[in-house]
């Protein structure tokens, strides 16, 4: 790895892959840093190693990643897997760990393509072994061909839950029940967005086809479910919930949950980029312009880490951000920029048609986000409960960051990835604000780093 590159791309999912390749094709020296063992991001995981029969079970969309990954392999991008980027600042200095050694890089431009993570939604019992993210289970399937034993329960709200259920059904998994926590009134909320969504009708028909297949297979789906709770002493034993006015309980060893995805914004936060609350996507996201430029010169952000748009949008957003970098670094003219961007802009416009509908249809109920009961653990690392957070607010600490200082909420090894959004909701509710007003400030190192690793930055001072 060199110590300086024209362009450093962080994240090898659809946005990072397409950005790195187009930038290298136009003569930039590009390094692509990724924390996984192989390129593809979460969506196109295990693309190069997956057996054909398993890839088929994942559906046609998944295979789209093949061309992105092979374009990387054919390019002269410097690609490094297994890298942890733990720091980025507004001077475009990057700190990372590779093979247990820390390194510093500098760049003319740093493109963030960190992707998304599943929205953590605290509910009673969600820390019990046996409760796992649906996306986690899908990773086991994609990367390793591992599927649940009989009797798994899926719960939550969002397209991934439906997709995973469909993939499982095709793989022969015996699903005990799907608990759909999407409130019925979301249908009304989404209705005004339906005409525009019809312009991207293939998404709607795909969703309908999945639902139909699941129904044909006789898989029980309960709609309009609420008050989800995982029960068990040391391990998950059962799931209880409200359905049609009654409390019901299902015995299960495995509960897979999903509440949509949110941008993974740890690095853009740490770098000091401006972030804002997006009420439609119900998440914090960095401010970016139509080229992906953030509030900090030289740090564009593309793909889901700039706001949730899905894999196809990420691919085009990544290219657009790279095209803008090429223009800024005088590799292409304004006219060439326009020509190169034309196709991607067109795709992005078409892809946008479906989003307002999806965001309204899968809007997570405010009660679930804002009002977990007092005993529910919110910070999984430091075991801070919703009650502790409300108490801190009642004691006069009215901002997420003050709550963090007081309670250690968000100070564990995950560095607030699993609680930042939830805390901002709970604090907002306690302050009677309609929307979250602040989220934790991010600070490097954004992933744990040992002193031993850090010390390798200065080898000349070693014995």
């Amino acid at each position: 790895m060199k110590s300086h590159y024209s362009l450093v791309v962080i994240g090898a999912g659809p946005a990072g892959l397409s950005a790195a390749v187009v930038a290298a094709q136009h003569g930039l020296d590009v390094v692509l840093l990724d924390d996984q063992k192989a390129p593809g991001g979460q969506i196109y995981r295990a693309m190069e190693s997956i057996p054909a029969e398993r890839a088929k079970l994942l559906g046609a969309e998944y295979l789209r990643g093949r061309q992105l990954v092979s374009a990387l392999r054919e390019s002269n991008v410097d690609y490094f897997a297994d890298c942890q980027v733990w720091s980025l600042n507004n001077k475009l200095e990057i700190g990372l760990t590779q093979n247990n050694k820390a390194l510093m890089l500098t760049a003319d431009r740093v493109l963030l393509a960190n992707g998304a993570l599943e929205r953590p939604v605290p509910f009673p019992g969600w820390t019990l072994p046996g409760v796992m993210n649906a996306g986690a289970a899908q990773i086991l399937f994609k990367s390793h061909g591992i599927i649940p034993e009989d009797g798994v329960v899926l719960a939550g709200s969002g397209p991934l839950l439906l997709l995973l259920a469909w993939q499982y059904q095709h793989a022969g998994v015996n699903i005990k029940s799907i608990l759909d926590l999407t409130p019925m009134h979301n249908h009304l909320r989404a209705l005004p967005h339906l005409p525009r969504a019809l312009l991207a009708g293939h998404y709607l028909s795909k969703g309908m086809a999945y639902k139909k297949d699941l129904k044909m297979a006789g898989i029980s789906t309960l709609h309009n479910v609420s008050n989800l709770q995982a029960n068990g002493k040391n391990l998950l034993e059962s799931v209880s919930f409200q359905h049609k006015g009654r409390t019901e309980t299902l015995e299960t060893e495995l509960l897979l949950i999903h509440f949509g995805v949110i941008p993974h914004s740890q690095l853009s936060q740490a770098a000091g980029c401006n972030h804002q609350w997006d009420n439609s996507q119900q998440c914090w996201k960095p401010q970016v312009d139509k080229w992906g430029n953030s509030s900090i010169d030289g740090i564009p952000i593309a793909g889901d880490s700039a706001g949730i748009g899905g894999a196809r949008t990420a691919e085009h957003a990544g290219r657009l951000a790279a095209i803008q970098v090429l223009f800024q670094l005088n590799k292409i003219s304004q006219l060439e920029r326009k020509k190169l961007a034309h196709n991607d802009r067109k795709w992005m416009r078409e892809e946008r048609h479906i989003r307002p509908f999806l965001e309204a249809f899968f809007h997570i109920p405010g009660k679930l986000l804002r009002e977990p009961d007092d005993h529910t653990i919110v910070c999984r690392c430091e075991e801070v409960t919703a009650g502790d957070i409300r108490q801190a607010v009642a004691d006069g600490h009215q901002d997420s960051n003050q709550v963090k200082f007081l309670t250690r909420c968000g100070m564990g090894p995950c560095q607030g990835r699993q609680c930042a959004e939830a805390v901002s909701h709970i604090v907002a509710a306690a302050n009677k604000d309609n929307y979250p007003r602040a989220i934790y400030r991010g600070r490097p190192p954004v992933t744990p780093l040992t002193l031993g690793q850090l010390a390798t930055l200065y080898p000349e001072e070693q014995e």
Partner: protein
Amino acid sequence: MFKRINQHPEDSVTITINGLPYDVPAGETVAAAILASSNLKFTRTSFISNSPRAPFCLMGVCYECLMVINGQSNQRACQVQVEDGMIVDRQKGTGLLST
């Protein structure tokens, strides 16, 4: 909880999970191998209350799967690939300090 679609992998390695040997497919992550092969129902206990915890996100962001791998504590089992002879232990609380 979990099982493998293909029960007979081509390449396998032997790892020790909490003192017991397991043959697991080469290329798997430690977390995947534990979930599919072992009876280890939880992989660490929490820092504050010592409650059992297990892998949650499998993509490296939740830090729930911290384990002691080859004597090094606080390793994310979902990010580490299995290697022949690897020794994996459940982590108690914050884990022992190691060099």
